[in-house]
């Protein structure tokens, strides 16, 4: 930059342009210095806007350098860039990654398909994808058990179990979640006698916060009702990384779906009857018309004759349970869902309906979904200890949802609601603790398995740790 007398370039310019010894440093040297400084400043400025490469440790132990990729969840409402991404292919690699992160004081968050609309997976540190850990580990058709790897998609799990003559007793509306994520957040379908997906977890294997491989429940030769299973069933990835999940299954079964449209008043008048008569029953309410879509699923030949007057049939299909239960459309939305005591659920729904019609339907055109879930015993299941009715608010992901959800959430809480762990809500540990009789027992187990808090990101800390 500071071109001076011992540099050959200075003398070349001096001779070619016929300059004096004094003129050259006054012009050429000054110009070059300005150019160099400006270029340096420009590169420095650019570097502020270009992502810096970071080191990513591959599972084979070799370092490679890459630009961190932004993570975007299914609805698009959640974005973050992890410091590192990891994609272990074996349980041992999961354990090694966790130990390495623990030694460096980093947080590890496992992620499945990213369907959740809350930042359970958000981290500046290590985002661990379980995509490479998929498939059926073993099955026992007679004992009605099957074990799968954590990254197995629900649709794939359904197909694998069906090939073994088995099926999950229920599924949710969509089947593109990874099974560990679906179970870890208490994903549910509908059916008065059917528990959420988590309630079918009877054992498995965890990599704990100290990097130990920890079999629990039936995988450890213990009873499915023991405390560790009841803690692991809905654990939000806070006890460890699930590396294998053993599920209670049922013999493969077929289902007949009927979706029909009728008026919401008829549905409310016949809710109890519909819920008792059908294996699965739920309904959507459309706030801008008071129409309702009733959806029933039953095993062929075991179907009630209850059909609403003037109903318009929207769907009529029969097939294997795991293909018929998922029934969603690819419309992206954000969602708040609360679990209410079954006996109070309809009264709560009536207030929700009134509130939406009075205050929100100017901007809310999408629907409200009402389902039922059987009681279970998981420590952090929002259906623990009580038969449940669920009410879900769905809002187009491109439209604002904050004011709508914020206005309805206190209503759900007044009725004794517990939030869905994977959907939008604003509760933190202080508000959640009174809702769960075994809250403290869960936290004790969590601190025992993850003493350093390797699996706690900021969001989970607010959720699980009282300040």
């Amino acid at each position, binding site marked *: 930059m500071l071109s001076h007398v011992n540099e050959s370039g200075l003398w070349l310019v001096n001779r070619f342009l016929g300059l004096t010894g004094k003129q050259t440093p006054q012009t050429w040297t000054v110009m070059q210095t300005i150019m160099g400084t400006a270029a340096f400043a420009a590169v420095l400025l650019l570097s502020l806007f270009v992502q810096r490469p970071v080191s990513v440790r591959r599972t084979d132990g070799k370092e490679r350098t890459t630009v961190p990729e932004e993570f975007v969840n299914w609805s698009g409402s959640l974005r973050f860039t992890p410091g590192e991404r990891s994609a272990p292919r074996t349980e041992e690699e999961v354990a090694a990654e966790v130990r390495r992160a623990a030694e460096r004081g980093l947080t590890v968050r496992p992620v499945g398909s990213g369907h959740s609309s809350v930042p359970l997976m958000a981290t500046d540190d290590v985002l661990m994808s379980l995509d490479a850990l998929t498939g059926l580990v073993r099955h026992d058709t007679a004992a009605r058990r099957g074990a799968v790897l954590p990254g197995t998609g629900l649709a794939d799990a359904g197909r694998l179990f069906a090939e073994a003559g088995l099926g999950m007793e229920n599924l949710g509306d969509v089947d593109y979640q990874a099974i560990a994520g679906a179970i870890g957040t208490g994903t549910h379908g509908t059916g008065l006698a059917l528990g959420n997906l988590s309630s079918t977890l009877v054992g498995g294997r965890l990599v704990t916060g100290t990097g130990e491989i920890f079999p629990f429940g039936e995988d450890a030769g213990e009873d499915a009702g023991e405390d560790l299973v009841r803690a692991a069933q809905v654990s939000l990835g806070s006890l460890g990384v699930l590396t294998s999940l053993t599920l209670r299954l049922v013999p493969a079964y077929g289902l007949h779906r009927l979706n029909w449209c009728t008026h919401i008043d008829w549905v409310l008048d016949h809710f109890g009857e519909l819920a008792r008569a059908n294996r699965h029953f739920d309904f959507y309410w459309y706030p801008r018309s008071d129409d309702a879509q009733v959806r029933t699923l039953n095993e062929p030949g075991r179907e009630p004759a209850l059909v609403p007057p003037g109903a318009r049939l929207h769907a009529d299909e029969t097939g294997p349970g795991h293909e018929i239960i998922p029934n969603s459309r690819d419309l992206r939305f954000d969602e708040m869902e609360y679990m209410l005591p079954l006996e109070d659920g309809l009264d709560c729904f009536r207030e929700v309906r009134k509130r939406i019609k009075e205050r929100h339907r100017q901007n809310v*055109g999408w629907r409200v979904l009402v389902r039922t879930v059987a009681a279970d015993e998981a420590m952090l299941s929002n259906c623990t200890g009580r038969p449940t009715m669920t009410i879900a608010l769905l809002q187009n992901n491109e439209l604002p949802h904050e004011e709508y959800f914020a206005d309805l959430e206190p209503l759900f809480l007044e009725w004794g609601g517990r939030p869905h762990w994977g959907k939008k809500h604003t509760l933190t540990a202080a508000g959640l603790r009174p809702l769960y009789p075994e809250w403290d027992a869960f936290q004790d187990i969590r601190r025992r398995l993850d003493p350093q808090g390797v699996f706690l990101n900021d969001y989970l800390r607010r959720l699980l740790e009282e300040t």
Partner: protein
Amino acid sequence: MSTLGPLGRTTWVFPGGHIPAAGTGAEPEFTSRDELCLLNSGGDDAQVELTVLYQDREPVGPYRVRVGARRVRHVRVNDLIDPQAVPLGVPYGAVVRSDVPVVAQLTRVDTRRGKLSTSVAAGYPAEV
């Protein structure tokens, strides 16, 4: 079977959309609404795309509606949700494009004053 053949245009424009935010009476019969009425007299199904324009933001769409051959279809604008719900109580306009000629009109039902009032707006056929 009638042989009307295709009638109308492939592009229609409605500048005066406005769905009343309130209403009276039992729903869905008396819900205040705008209803897009599409008539396809031709022998092929019509794939119709609706784009909604606003005063203060970029257009939203396309909303897709299929109208069978030799059929009419009345679609409540209130009920459109994909890609997103059309807000009530604000001015909007709509451009309707179809792959075959159709005839389009917009019907408004307003039940705010305890009575049923309706109005009909013919669309403007437009050439690109």
